[in-house]
């Protein structure tokens, strides 16, 4: 069998041809392109990731690595069990809550609440303030305080925009801001 391009071995870092596939469950089969004449993908979504491996750069930990079918070799049973439990136990637990002007922070367990109304009520009780009604257009227009949170990317977001489940898994800490400062959060930067 002809195996050309042996040089590529040295720089063999399996790289992605497609950006931003982190959250998806799709497994794309990547054949090592310098070993086979026609890389075939097994469970692909129409993508043929090939020449990515040829790039001279080595060993950078890419933000999102492609997932190869069956790699790492972990039994499906283990995969299924670990994913669900990890999701439950890791995210949406105790997050710090800061309030502008307060001397110390508090902590709340997000898992305890079933949705935004309960969370907001708990925050109102905890800090003895009122937050008011959420509207998609105006945020918490008119209230003295507005709840914001820091998400996985480090961005400051307004509480209430995304579905509760998504919020639970992405919220890293809460911040209760003064209504006047929060006005800017209503619009995209």
């Amino acid at each position: 069998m002809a195996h050309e391009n042996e040089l590529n071995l040295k720089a063999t870092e399996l790289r992605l041809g497609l950006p931003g596939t982190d959250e998806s469950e799709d497994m794309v089969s990547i054949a090592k392109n310098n070993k086979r004449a026609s890389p075939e993908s097994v469970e692909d979504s129409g993508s043929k990731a090939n020449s990515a491996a040829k790039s001279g750069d080595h060993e950078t930990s890419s933000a999102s690595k492609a997932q190869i079918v069956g790699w790492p070799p972990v039994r499906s049973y283990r995969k299924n069990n670990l994913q669900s439990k990890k999701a439950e136990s890791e995210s949406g637990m105790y997050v710090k809550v800061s309030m502008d002007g307060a001397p110390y922070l508090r902590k709340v367990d997000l898992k305890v609440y079933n949705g935004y109304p309960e969370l907001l009520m708990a925050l109102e009780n905890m800090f003895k303030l009122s937050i008011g009604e959420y509207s998609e257009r105006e945020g918490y227009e008119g209230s003295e305080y507005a709840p914001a949170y820091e998400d996985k990317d480090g961005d400051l977001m307004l509480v209430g925009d995304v579905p509760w489940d998504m919020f639970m898994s992405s919220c890293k800490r809460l911040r209760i801001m003064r209504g006047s400062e929060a006005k800017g959060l209503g619009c995209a930067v």
Partner: protein
Amino acid sequence: MINYFPEEVLWHVFSFLTSHPDRNAASLVCKSWYNVERFSRGKVFIGNCYAISPERMISRFPRVRSLTLKGKPHFADFNLIPQDWGGNVYPWIVAMAKGSTNLEELRLKRMVVSDESLELLAKSFPNFKSLVLVSCEGFTTDGLAAIASNCRFLRELDLQENEVEDRRGQWLSCFPDSCTSLSSLNFACLKGEVNVAALERLVARCRNLKSLRLNHAVPPDALQKILAQAPQLVDLGADSFVHDPESETYNKLKNVMQKCSSIRSLSGFLDVNARCLPSIYPICINLTSLNLSYAPGIYSKELVKLIHKCKKLQRLWILDTIGDKGLGVVASTCKELQELRVFPSDLHVVGNVAVTEEGLVAISAGCPNLNSLLYFCQQMTNAALITVAKNCPNFIRFRLCTLNPTIPDAVTMQPLDEGFGAIVQSCKGLKRLSVSGLLTDQVFLYIGMYAEQLEMLSIAFAGDSDKGMLYVLNGCKKLKKLEIRDSPFGNMALLADTGKYETMRSLWMSSCGVTFGGCKTLAEKMPRLNVEIINEGDEMEGRPDDRQKVEKMYLYRTLVGPRKDAPDFVWTL
């Protein structure tokens, strides 16, 4: 001279032969030994259910009491084999029922088990005692109900990592009040609820119960009550552990744990608050086996505190969240460690450094008795592997898995050939090896040269040319199972020594360079091999071109020709 030994003497001598290889060897000596052996063999092990037919097995071993069967090839674990490939146990049970086999024990791995099979099993063998299912599928809790209801002398029901459909029936309540013989009950893989009161009563009346693994649906206060009834337990698995260290349940659990001084093996903890772990501290000192690989909720600090107390540990299964530092604690605490498995906690591998070569080196330095390793790591170096080889020459199983399958030596950027070479050279008893990382043909040269006892080898994304595979086929005389994926081995390597495959159990090659023509040639030459091609997708309309590469090939030796239950997408050439 030996021919004149009376059979009774041979029989008595053979009763001391317990291992299958020994018995197989004895049966080859002469006809009379063959006959004595076959009538005296009670435990039959069949590593590939398609290598022989049930009828032939029964006719050769009419007194079989215990049968072990393995179905799908190993790579089925990693989604490389489509559903309905095969491996159904039903024909075996039918044949044994017809043949009035006095079956007492059935152990299955990677097989399809239907409720019908379980029902037939339960009703056909009055002395049935032990059912062990590992990585099987196809049955529901209705099948378990049949087993519970009918097997009057059941001692062992051990379900490990099976996919079981939960029918929300009351299978556990089906154990009659007269059932007191259970010594092992493991239903940790079931998702649904069980009747907790029935469970408590069952445990209370089975005074010989030594091993109990509960599923997530058994709540912590039930756990506490159950343990109170079974202080004689040796092995405990509890997925649903207590959450609140201030609670009454926690106190009760703590007290009852102190009385469970026989527990040597612990697993589960799927759902636990790490602050409640102190309740198990009293038993840690006696633990020889600890499986926390399904416990992502236990963070590194708590884990380390726990391990500090487990000085007698021989087997440890853990997640890579333990980190290199945590492994250092294991190394300094668990001096009697023999088996270590470190599993990846984050399967999406987004560059968080979990464990590296450092952790492994620390373990090798601290645990000289280490003989079995499964290690998923972010990176590895040749230097580390060479050190490990020097520190631990006793490896029987060495499986290394770098999360990036072709990553080179993290320091030198070289292939990891030298590292694995050191392992095979040093570990003269090595029977199983999985390699990963950047690897050239050189590593296979080493393997062929030094791995004289190697029986199973797993290769992925490795090698440069046919030479690699040839080194292995020519060198490893005891090779039984070879599985290769995504490596540049083609027809030349496949066809160089076709007789070799009759000395092996099986060969798997996927995403390699072998073609239809090559596989056909092999199949024609070797009638006692089944060469199966798995076709997926719609590429396979009509006969493919001989030059076309084969995506998945599985070949195995067999005495019974092509299997009759092959689905449409499997072609036996």
